[in-house]
């Protein structure tokens, strides 16, 4: 055989195998390869946080999958879960730790201790991830060793994050107080390159179909308990090319605060919780009109499953008994409800 043909054969084989490898998702195998993870905070100080798993096909719910796999409870106030490769990283807020489990069987592979009040985790490269904490810092996690390699000092209460290219947008919620900025971190240099002033209590961030980053700010204060120093919520659009605020829509009242922000599959509609309802905003509109999708009572968590194009929201009831998860179509029609565990507050869709 000619050398040229061998080279061509080798290249063909290389292309074939590399393509098949990139198609293969390591997380596509195993019991939890596809489904919905419900994050149940548990009661503060009650040591009953957990994760439930919802099988989309059967609509069955498997409860406390961490306890079932590891014969020990997950921890106190389960805040969030992120899947990186074939692992799941679970921020357990009041237990000051991040649990690392195999996604296939949810068995623990590592416990990262000594992280003060971890909130959310985002993979920023093949070798590292960021963990926000209310320790006024973003912790840098070495994914190879599952250890903390460094910290980036932030403003108070770094919380939800969003990855846009090499930039990581960190919402500084204020923690137990009130924050109103976003720190933009260059993930290659692990340093803050820009601070964007938004409105009080930034709570959620998503990208729309046009590449703008939408940020929902809840405003200072508590729903239904107005105080003299309350502030209004706001929905802002940020241009990631120059970090400027392109649009701002203020909510009308100081006593009613929006929360949670998700985008639909086509990223042309935003959904959020507001005034005992789920509301939507059309990113293509230039107006400031929010459309009520559905009335909800005591909604705590909100998510959007791009697989099924269903809105998920949760009701924690009294935070001391099992809560409920509801699935709603984008037109607001209720599909079904499923019982979760104590204080369901978030979702991860795999």
């Amino acid at each position, binding site marked *: 055989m000619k050398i040229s043909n061998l080279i061509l054969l080798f290249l063909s084989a290389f292309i074939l195998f590399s393509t098949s490898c990139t198609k293969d998702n390591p997380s596509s195998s195993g019991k939890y390869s596809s489904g919905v993870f419900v994050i149940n905070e548990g009661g503060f100080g009650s*040591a009953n946080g957990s994760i439930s798993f919802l099988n989309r096909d059967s609509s069955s719910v498997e409860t406390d999958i961490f306890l079932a796999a590891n014969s020990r*409870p997950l921890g106190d106030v389960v805040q969030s879960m992120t899947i990186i490769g074939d692992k799941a990283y679970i921020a357990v807020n009041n237990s000051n730790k991040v649990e690392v489990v195999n996604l296939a069987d949810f068995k623990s592979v590592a416990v990262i201790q000594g992280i003060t009040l971890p909130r959310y985790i985002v993979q920023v490269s093949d070798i590292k991830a960021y963990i926000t904490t209310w320790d006024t810092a973003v912790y840098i996690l070495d994914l190879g060793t599952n250890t903390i390699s460094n910290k980036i000092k932030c403003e108070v209460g770094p919380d939800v994050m969003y990855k846009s290219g090499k930039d990581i947008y960190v919402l500084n919620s204020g923690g137990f107080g009130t924050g109103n900025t976003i720190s933009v971190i260059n993930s290659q240099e692990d340093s803050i390159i820009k601070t964007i002033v938004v409105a009080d209590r930034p709570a959620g961030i998503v990208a729309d179909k046009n590449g703008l980053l939408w940020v929902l700010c809840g405003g200072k204060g*508590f*729903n239904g308990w107005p*105080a003299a120093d309350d502030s209004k919520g706001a929905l802002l659009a940020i241009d990631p090319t120059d970090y400027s605020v392109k649009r701002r829509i203020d909510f009308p009242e100081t006593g009613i605060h929006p*929360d949670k922000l998700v985008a639909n599959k086509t990223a042309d509609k935003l959904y959020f*919780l507001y005034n005992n309802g789920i509301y939507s905003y059309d990113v293509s509109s230039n107006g400031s009109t929010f459309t009520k999708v559905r009335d909800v009572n005591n909604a705590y968590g909100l998510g959007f499953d791009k697989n099924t194009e269903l809105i998920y929201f949760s009701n924690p*009831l009294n935070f001391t008994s099992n809560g409920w998860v509801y699935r709603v179509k984008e037109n607001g029609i209720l599909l079904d409800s499923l019982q979760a565990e104590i204080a369901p507050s978030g979702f991860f869709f795999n």
Partner: protein
Amino acid sequence: MKRIVFVVLICLPVLVAAQVKVADTVIQLNAIEISGTRTGLSLAGCLSEKVDSTKLIRSSNLGEALDNMIQVQVKSNGVSGSSSLYLRGTSSVHNAVFWNGFNIAFGSLGSTDMSLLPAILFDKAIINYGGAASQFGSGVIGGSVNLNNIAAYNKGINAAFLLEKFSFNNFSVSGRAGFSNKKLAVTTAVSFVENENNFRYNNIYKEKDTLTHARFNQISVLQQAGYKTGKNSEIKAGWWYYDAFREISPTLLVPENDQNQHDNALRGFVEYAFTPGLWNLNIKAFLNDEIMIFTSKQAGINTSYHLKSSQIEANAKRIIGRFAIAAGIQQRFQRADVPVYKSDVNESQMALFSSFEYTSFSSKFSTGLYARHDFQSDYNIPFCPSLGLKWMPLKKLEIGASVSKNFRLPTLNDRYWVPGGNPDILPENSWNQDISIKYSDKNADSRTAYFITLSAYNMHINNLIQWVPVTATIWSPVNRDKVWSRGVSENSTIKFTGSKFAHSISTSYTFSLSTSGASENEHFQLIYIPLHKAGAEYTFGYRKFTAALMWHFIGKRFTTTDNTSFLPTTNLADLELKQSLQSKDLHFDLFFTVKNLFNTDYQMVAGYPESLRYFSFKLIVQYLNSLHNENQ
């Protein structure tokens, strides 16, 4: 007059044995009580249980002794956390703790932190089961614990000293000394506690670990004095101070914790009693100044409470033949300086109360009709009557029954907490029914004695106050569920006393069904109230040596309001050995106790570690005269 002033001013500090906090959830409760009228707190027909003095001495603390008694549970939020009293399946806010007849509940929370109660030698502690709002007002629904110290005259000098050390770094020392002659009785007690609470426990990986950040330190001082101003008159006064600092212990799933709590209180009272002929007149005043500060640097919390309250009460009782008629008036003021309330709180409350009691000539039958009406500008408090009767058809048999209406006012936190406080919240109210049967007997040679108590109770609590999430981030109290609490209990003892040997066996069992639900179809057991609770104790004595084996059974306890999660049943055993010695006027008791004999891994509150097996060494030294006093 000069003597009266002298007595008041000299009020030697009555040292109150600071509570010794044991590694389990039992709260030690020392009682120094100043006796006076209306301090018995026992209404006709109601079941009362005196805490046996020997059991108090044997137990590390009163909470431990109380926990073995019928229908009582003491629950702690961790070994160094606050501790609550649960009687008859109700919650801590439905029971009251009285000191010298004054309710010492913390106004913001509506309950008494048992871990802060003075812990030294008791003269007397009485548990009164059932409602007693008809005489003592708000918060006495499940029952009450009455702490009393008898100002006994003409007893000479008495003194006691207690030293206790655990096998980990817990240490306490307390002492008490008193003097009394025909006219003057003075007692002073002091206690010092330094508990590291660094005990061994099993962590969530089932590995042995040592508890950290669970330190508890307390110093308590209590002084009381009584002086007979005349043949039929007496003045008493006392003050009580404590200062405690605690590190809130971490939980099994929160291995590090920076929460701390500092408690400080100064209380005092003065009382004048006059009993000319068939009259009994009493006037007394009480002052209370309490501070609590809770901090957590990690959570950015620094919450402080400063509460001041005062109370003045006058009552008169007239005995007419077999009848006793009484009436009284009480005025109470309360001020709260709590930053989270956003404004100072000033409240006043007045109450009128009366009683009508009859005792038959043979004393075999007695009955009492009681009534009280409280007045407070923010509420329409119900009129609370109660009727009780006691009948002894046989000399050895006593039957009691009572029915009562009771209420509980919302706490300051219920009304003023920002955000969430509900100024429109209504008081709770309840109807209680109780019945009890006591039988005691001994054989002809008095070598064998039997005691048995059977009781049953039933209560409906309406307008139960519950904190619920009104939004996802705001909790607020609402009047919601009804609670139906009912149960039965048994408590029995058999004693055999020989010339050299002595045996006794005691058993107790309680069944508590306390249910609530948002609708009539919902009947969930209240959290942390076990359906079944039992205990047994065998004691063997040979001359001055005693060995006791104790078993405690606590049934399943639900930890969520929908009863989907629970703590499993717990079986615990303790072994206690005691050697007594006598040397002239001094009596020594040396104790060696093995707690959690079988090294059981258990939790009393979900997530909070409990100590594996540990040891306690205790030395009690008493001046002989004090023994004579205690046996009166």
